[in-house]
């Protein structure tokens, strides 16, 4: 099935309820191929839930979403084959070495035998862990763990990657380096869907959606969103203003 209008991700009126709690409230957006799409918002805004739905980990309560043309509700397996996912919680195996984790995910993602060594080398270099192959993963510092997790998520060269708060708890320098990696991936045509609660990282995205209480309260390129706020406006300003506007509307 061809992707919708060349878009990598299409979300239409997505809802997700947990009992009486609405985690995702009528979200609609689309992400183009090769785009770095940012998902901003405070904790509890519904970012992780949305990402999980897009990865086929949760079923939507209503609405529709498709990744690379595959419907996430009815074709989750096809979706999973073409994505990489990095969950919010660090979820590589702490009691395995760096190399063993890489080998495992290479096997599990079905990286072709001919490509394996090359991809392994690439990932190790990307994570900067060429000399730490035999180190126990739980002994790595936070920033390295994140890079390793990112590496494992792209071993199979997926066309689209979902990163759920990949830089939380990481120092600013490491964060900067991480985003360099993301840029490099996007340049090669990978679509990156990344969520964060760091407002400054918003600047790095091509387009972004601001989420608050399950709803998308602003959508567009950073420059677009900041226009109308004057010189020197930051995403923080945009965000706070958007929230205040929402709360006023609610009254």
């Amino acid at each position, binding site marked *: 099935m061809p992707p919708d209008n060349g878009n990598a991700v299409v979300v239409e009126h997505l809802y997700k309820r947990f009992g009486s709690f609405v985690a995702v409230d009528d979200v609609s957006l689309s992400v183009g191929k090769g785009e770095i799409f940012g998902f901003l918002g405070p904790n509890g805004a519904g970012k992780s839930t949305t990402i999980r739905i897009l990865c086929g*980990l949760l079923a939507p309560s209503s609405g529709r979403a498709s990744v690379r043309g595959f419907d996430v509700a009815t074709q989750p397996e096809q979706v999973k084959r073409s994505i990489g*996912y990095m969950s919010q919680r660090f979820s*590589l*195996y702490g009691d*395995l070495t760096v190399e063993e984790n890489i080998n495992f995910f290479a*096997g*599990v993602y*079905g990286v072709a035998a001919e490509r394996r060594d090359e991809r392994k080398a690439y990932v190790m270099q990307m994570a900067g862990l060429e000399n730490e192959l035999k180190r126990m993963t739980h002994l790595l510092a936070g920033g390295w763990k994140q890079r390793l997790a990112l590496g494992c998520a792209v071993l199979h060269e997926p066309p689209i990657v979902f990163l759920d708060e990949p830089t939380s708890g990481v120092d600013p320098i490491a964060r900067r380096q991480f985003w360099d990696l993301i840029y490099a991936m996007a340049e090669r045509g990978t679509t990156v869907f990344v969520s964060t609660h760091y407002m400054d990282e918003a600047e790095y995205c091509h387009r972004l959606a601001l989420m608050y209480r399950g709803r998308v309260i602003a959508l567009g390129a950073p420059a677009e969103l900041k226009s109308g706020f004057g010189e020197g406006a930051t995403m923080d300003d945009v965000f706070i203003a958007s929230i205040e506007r929402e709360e006023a509307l609610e009254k």
Partner: protein
Amino acid sequence: MKWRRFYAIFRKEGLHITRDWRSLWMALAMPLLLLLLFGYALTLDVDQIPTVVYDQDQTPQSRELIARLSGSRYFQIVERRGDYAGIIRRFDRSTALLGVVIPSEFGRNLAANEDVAVQLLLDGSDSNTASIAAGYAEALIMAYSAELRQEQMMRRGAGKLKQPIDPRVRVLYNNEMKSRNFIIPGLIAVILMIIASMLTSLTVAREWENGTMEQLLSTPVRPTELLMGKLCAYFVLGMTDMAIALVVGVGVFGVPLRGSPLLLIGASALFLFGALCWGIFLSTVMRSQELAYQISLLSSFLPAFLLSGFIFAIENMPLVIQQVTRIVPARYFVSILQGIFMKGVGFTVLWTKFLFLFIYAALIFTLANRKMRQKMA
């Protein structure tokens, strides 16, 4: 199912198992520990029962009876000059289980061709030993009684006579009557159950708790591959334990293995597979390790230990419980084990039990597979 993905899971599980050296060495030492306990320390055989003798008569006849008692391996006379109060006191303190009271008219009555009664006082709190002790004591006294009658007959000129019926007891399969020859084969079932249910019950639950399950779910890994990968890794561990038990049981404890080792390995593999599937099923359903562990103890270990016929004979259980044991796979496996080790029987005799194990394994595998699929969807 793709071989690559299965193999990746299998390797990962293997690494987990070998990395956790604390768990690993306990898993491998477990069979040794149990073998030591059951092969050496624990026995249900009843002998050397601490006995008090209260001889109110003090005649050659009563002393003869006491000599019989003390000469038997079943009784250990701890006091020869007991009295009622003393016996009760000993019961209270659990320093004696049996009191034999010989009445004062013992010798007199026997000489006058009158019947006489010997009292057996029992501490009933250990009812099993008490019943058996009473049985042995009665048998011994009856034998003495029969001898006395014979002597009387001879004295009346009836000539040297033999017992009309001479009961010849021939013991099959376990001539030396060593309880360990019987317990150790059944122990293999318990060992496998412990490893299978305990360890596998934790494996999936742990991934839920750590969050690595979520990562796995986002990959193309199919539920069956995950199931098989984990199964095979723990299967290797289980069969290793079985090999250890076999080698130590036969080589160190000298338990005879009269049947086919190949059949034994086949049965073990079949049983282990079913047990592993059950553990993984529990682990998938209960997302917490502690819960999974407790339920696995209840549903795998306890039945294997109590209801499999390994120590406590099923024939002696209430009928309702006997029916319950029909769905305990360990029961069939213990039967097979005892048959192969001690009786040297083959597939033709045991095939019904193999069939049950096979059906059980297939059923639980399907169940585990379905549950895994459900939880991963």
